[in-house]
């Protein structure tokens, strides 16, 4: 590629990245990446963690300058050569021509200043507008991103906003100077699925109205399918596949893309292996009228409010809900880690208080669920020792067996948790639960911290174990697709209550409750055309 051509393209191409490499010490995060983004176009960088996608986004704004990272190759953004630009030129690019929206809107805004003031500050840096004009501009962009009563709300500070509102505010900040390019780095990852749909719709509308280009960085193929024209799949810092969204997602050519797409759980696909006797077996775990309050007096918060459910032998009950729906609290009461304020849990027909090794749990966070100071073998051996097993040889044999059963090696016995990846640690957690010979395992978001390919493997393992050992599972998760994939029956939680419960196919196929319908409508589809249809459908009730 000749330099002449590069300058010529600067008029039509908003972004031109040529042979970009970024190294942090020994690690090469981005390795010879090239792509272009035309004016007004939208491109998604899709990849799992460690693929280097966010590093690329930062490189577009020259944010690696002065951090010790070595950046090579050329990066042209809106006519600015980011690699050679002076500090002043970079400042003029950032926010004015290319603006970035970050993942976590709460920590990305200054907690001490009013949101309107923060937007006004950014605006003034680039326009030399008066304080008053900048403030007015802030209110205008806040209105534009759909913040009701923007003049008043602009005086509030970030913590007084909800998660979705904060992300809107951050987008408003990005809009303040009418940039040509919006870089969105996992803009919806920290949000609930219904809020995610709203933010993606907002981004779509803004792009239609302003004609700005969009570079979306995401791990979620569904989010990409909803929002962009072109997809670039990244792995280990390189481009695996690049092309129009319909082509890449519809007929992937690279093996990795196929693997990635294959691993994505689909909310519209029924579960393949279905047991005929689902819902017929005897009850192992019964909860009646469970209620749990936190705090006292006026500040009482009812996390779970009168939940009754029955878990039958060998089945999987999915519990799905957004953050704050009380699903984790419910899970902890089922295993006895939390005592209910009212109601009771019956295990095998007997009322139970406290914990019982026959009811185990797999935790969400693969980091904190293993004691970092003890070898994984020791952690797995805990239930055996607690049961009174003293024969070291037998303990070691059993633990080795369990580790091998969950897909690890027996030799891992003496390793420590930090030597394992997230997926492996989750396997250790499963082995520890199995060591107690449980009748029931409650899985609390067991895969939400994992990449999608790892997620698929762990889900498959859980299914296998269940078939083999006949354990009843409660699968608590926020991800509707994953829950459908694993569950025989599904309970939908909303504000501490179960709003709908039934066989998975019925709940997903013909939801009765309006909240369930709303949730299902918000799940991003992998098919871009379907996504457009559903967007239109979501927009209708709003305009009606």
């Amino acid at each position: 590629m000749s330099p002449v051509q590069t300058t010529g393209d600067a008029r039509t191409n908003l972004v031109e990245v040529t042979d970009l490499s970024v190294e942090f010490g020994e690690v090469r995060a981005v390795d010879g990446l090239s792509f272009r983004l035309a004016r007004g176009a939208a491109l998604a960088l899709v990849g799992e963690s460690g693929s280097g996608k966010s590093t690329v986004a930062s490189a577009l704004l020259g944010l690696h300058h002065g951090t010790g990272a070595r950046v090579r190759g050329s990066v042209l953004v809106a006519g600015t050569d980011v690699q050679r630009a002076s500090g002043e030129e970079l400042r003029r690019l950032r926010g004015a021509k290319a603006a970035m929206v970050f993942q976590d809107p709460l920590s990305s805004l200054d907690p001490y200043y009013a949101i309107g003031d923060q937007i006004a500050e950014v605006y003034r840096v680039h326009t030399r507008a008066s304080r008053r004009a900048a403030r007015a501009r802030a209110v205008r962009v806040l209105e534009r991103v759909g913040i009701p009563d923007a003049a008043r709300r602009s005086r509030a500070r970030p913590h007084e906003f909800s998660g979705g509102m904060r992300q809107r505010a951050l987008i408003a900040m990005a809009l303040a100077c009418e940039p040509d390019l919006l870089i969105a780095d996992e803009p919806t990852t920290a949000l609930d699925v219904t809020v995610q749909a709203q933010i993606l719709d907002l981004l779509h509308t803004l792009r239609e109205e302003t004609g700005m280009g969009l570079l979306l960085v995401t791990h979620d193929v569904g989010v990409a399918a909803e929002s962009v024209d072109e997809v670039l799949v990244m792995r280990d810092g390189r481009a695996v596949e690049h092309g129009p969204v319909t082509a890449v997602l519809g007929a992937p050519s690279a093996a990795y893309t196929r693997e990635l797409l294959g691993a994505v759980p689909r909310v519209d696909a029924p579960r393949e292996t279905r047991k005929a006797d689902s819902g017929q077996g005897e009850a192992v775990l019964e909860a009646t009228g469970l209620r749990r309050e936190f705090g006292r007096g006026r500040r009482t918060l009812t996390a779970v409010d009168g939940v009754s459910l029955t878990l039958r032998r060998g089945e999987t009950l999915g519990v799905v809900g957004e953050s704050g729906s009380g699903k984790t609290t419910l899970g902890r009461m089922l295993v006895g880690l939390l005592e209910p304020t009212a109601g009771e849990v019956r295990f095998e027909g007997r009322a139970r208080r406290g914990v019982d090794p026959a009811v185990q749990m797999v935790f969400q966070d693969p980091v904190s669920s293993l004691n970092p100071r003890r070898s994984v073998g020791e952690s797995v051996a805990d239930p055996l020792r607690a049961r009174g097993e003293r024969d070291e040889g037998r303990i070691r044999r059993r633990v080795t067996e369990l580790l091998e059963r969950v897909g690890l090696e027996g030799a891992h016995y003496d390793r420590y948790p930090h030597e394992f990846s997230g997926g492996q640690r989750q396997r250790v957690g499963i082995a520890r639960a199995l060591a107690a010979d449980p009748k029931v395992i409650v899985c609390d978001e067991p895969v939400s911290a994992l990449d999608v390919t790892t997620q698929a493997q762990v889900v498959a393992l859980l299914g296998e174990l269940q078939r083999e050992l006949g354990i009843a599972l409660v699968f608590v998760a926020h991800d509707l697709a994953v829950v459908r994939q694993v569950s025989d029956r599904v309970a939908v939680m909303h504000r501490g209550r179960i709003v709908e419960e039934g066989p998975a196919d019925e709940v997903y196929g013909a939801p009765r409750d309006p909240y369930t319908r709303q949730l299902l409508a918000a799940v991003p589809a992998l098919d871009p055309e379907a996504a457009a249809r559903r967007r239109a459908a979501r927009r209708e009730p709003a305009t009606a």
Partner: protein
Amino acid sequence: MSVFGGLTGFVLRRVLGAVATLFALSVIVYVVFYAAPGNVAQITCGPRCSPEQLHQVAQQLRLDDPLHVRYWHFLEGLVAGHDYSTGTSVEHCPAPCLGVSYQSGRQVMSIITAKLPVSLSLVAGAMVLWLVLGVGTGVLSAWRRGRTSERVLTALTLAGTATPVFVIGLVLMIVVCGEFQWLPFPQYVNLTDDPEQWAWNLLLPWLSLALIEAAAFARLTRASMLETLAEDHIRTFRAYGVGERSVVGRHALRGALAPVIALNANNVGSAVGGAVLTETLFGLPGIGQELVHAVNVVDLPVVVGMVLVVGFFVVIANTVADVLFAVADRRVVLA
């Protein structure tokens, strides 16, 4: 819930908490000093007490009554004041009555109020100095991170934290007043009499008290600044082309100041401790010097009174800091 309402509630809770703490503090101090094993009357009155005086003290402290009655009497004096007999006449000790020194015959409260201006001058002036010096140094060394100027500042700060108040004071006094005679040895002059002389004479005491505190503040400010500079919202403003001066001076400093406010309140206590040393060293007639004297001659009512007065100031300072902290960061109120 309006934020203001939350804040008012928070302030109210804090104030109530402070009152409770003060009450508990008075109980503990009373029990430790007036219910200790041994002859309380003898300890209270001092080693050179006549038998008549001893009898009188025992009566005044109501040593024949059970402990809670005695404490109640003490508390009554604090709130309402009471009359006491000196043997020849009956005198009134107005509220808050902290008792009477049996060695000098004076009321403890009047001893303290006479000495308080000196100590307040010392601590207040030093506080201004240490805040300016400490926060300034901290911000500078966080900003100049990794450069030579930062290393020099860090070394100085370390030396500052490691030098006890009385060593700094000694060295300053010997060098400035002794060897080079740039300043006369400090003599306290009332602020109202001659403000200029007041300041000149307090300059060395201020410095010796402030340097060690300034070092502590510099360390805290630097750490706090670095932590804030690593936060996501700082990245946001950099990614939006906001200049480094505004990022550091406006956004990072604002976030970094909260722990500084908290430390400042805590340091009122340690500063009073430092003030005792400074006053003793420079011969300033403040409550610190008086306290050391009272301790040396075992004048218990004075000692107890001073512990309570200093405890009072520390609790107030902590409460004010909590409230300031909450105003600075309203998220605390939600807790």
